[in-house]
């Protein structure tokens, strides 16, 4: 349930990003540090933040998204703990150079989105075949059209 909310929030942010550009939108009930982490992870996957890039300082990011610096700090620390980022004393925080790690991140996030999709569609009563069929149809249009449901 909790992870579902995270993924929904990812979808939310993902959608909003497409519509609004680069503004980060927050969701109410998910811890902000997790939302920040997901935001950064997504940017890494889409290569807006390339591996080895320096992450903005805690203060810079805090000001950019109007969040308590302690919260940003916590997000960064968690990212470090997960191996997504690492810090160099005196120089700052950097995104991991590990390509495998990034690929893993991408597939983890994709898994989450797919899982949510399947769960949601199951609840609506769709069978596996129906789901497959719909996906096929929608995917004919490619990536760009499918985000305009909001």
């Amino acid at each position: 349930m909790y992870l579902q909310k995270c993924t929904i929030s990812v979808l939310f942010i993902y959608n909003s990003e497409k519509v609004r550009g680069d503004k980060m939108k927050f969701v109410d009930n998910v811890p902000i540090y997790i939302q920040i982490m997901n935001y950064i992870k997504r940017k890494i996957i889409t290569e807006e933040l390339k591996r080895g890039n320096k992450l903005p300082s805690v203060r810079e990011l805090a000001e950019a998204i109007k969040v308590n610096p302690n919260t940003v700090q916590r997000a960064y620390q968690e990212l470090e703990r997960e191996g997504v980022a690492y810090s160099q004393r005196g120089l700052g925080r950097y995104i991991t150079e590990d390509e495998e790690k990034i690929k893993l991140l991408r597939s983890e996030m994709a898994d989450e989105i797919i899982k949510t999709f399947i769960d949601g569609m199951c609840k609506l009563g769709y069978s596996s075949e129906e789901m497959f069929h719909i996906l096929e149809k929608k995917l004919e249009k490619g990536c760009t059209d499918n985000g305009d449901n909001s």
Partner: protein
Amino acid sequence: METILKATNVTKEYSRHRGLNGLNIEIKKGRIVGLLGPNGSGKTTFIKIAAGILRYSSGEVLIDGKEPGKYTKSIVAYLPDTNFLYKWMKIKDAMKFYNDMFDDFDNEKCTHLLEFMNLDINDRVMSLSKGMLEKLNLSLTLSRKAKLYILDEPLGGVDPTAREKIINAIIDNFKEDSSMIITTHLVNDIERLFDDVMFISEGQIVLEGNAEELRISKGKSIDELYREVFQ
């Protein structure tokens, strides 16, 4: 973590009612705390006590271990809800005043902040709009290197662009060894700044905790929680 402010069982009696009724608050170093409550809940009363311009009837308030007085006034930077600058002042007079009266005032920082807020130091204080006045007052307050900042409704009556600047200035000013108490009822704009929140009603704390943890446990934003608590 050290405590910068500790209020124990504080009451404030007025002739017809109690402003504060057994209030217990503890603020730790380096935390930004939101003190949330409707008008009349006691938040301004508590703020004024901490600033040293109001006495409490019973209980104890210790700031850095001392009762409110000359020492605490030198380490507490208070931003009142009203126009408090002397009416004859220009912005540069206000800066000089702060510089003279407070040892911890940083002139350079203030100049920098005023530029950021697009304020001209030769303007008269009386000629400023509400939003500009709020930005000025905040700049003066944040330019002090205080141990405890108390901001009473820093966003009240201010347009959204000014609000953004104010929030940015607050974040930029964040120091690990200073704490901040912010009172507001515009929770939505500012809730992501809070480390901890305290809900005050009828002179008592009715709910408090770490902002993130409250979001998780209650499953809603602080703004929604506020509406729920005070509906």
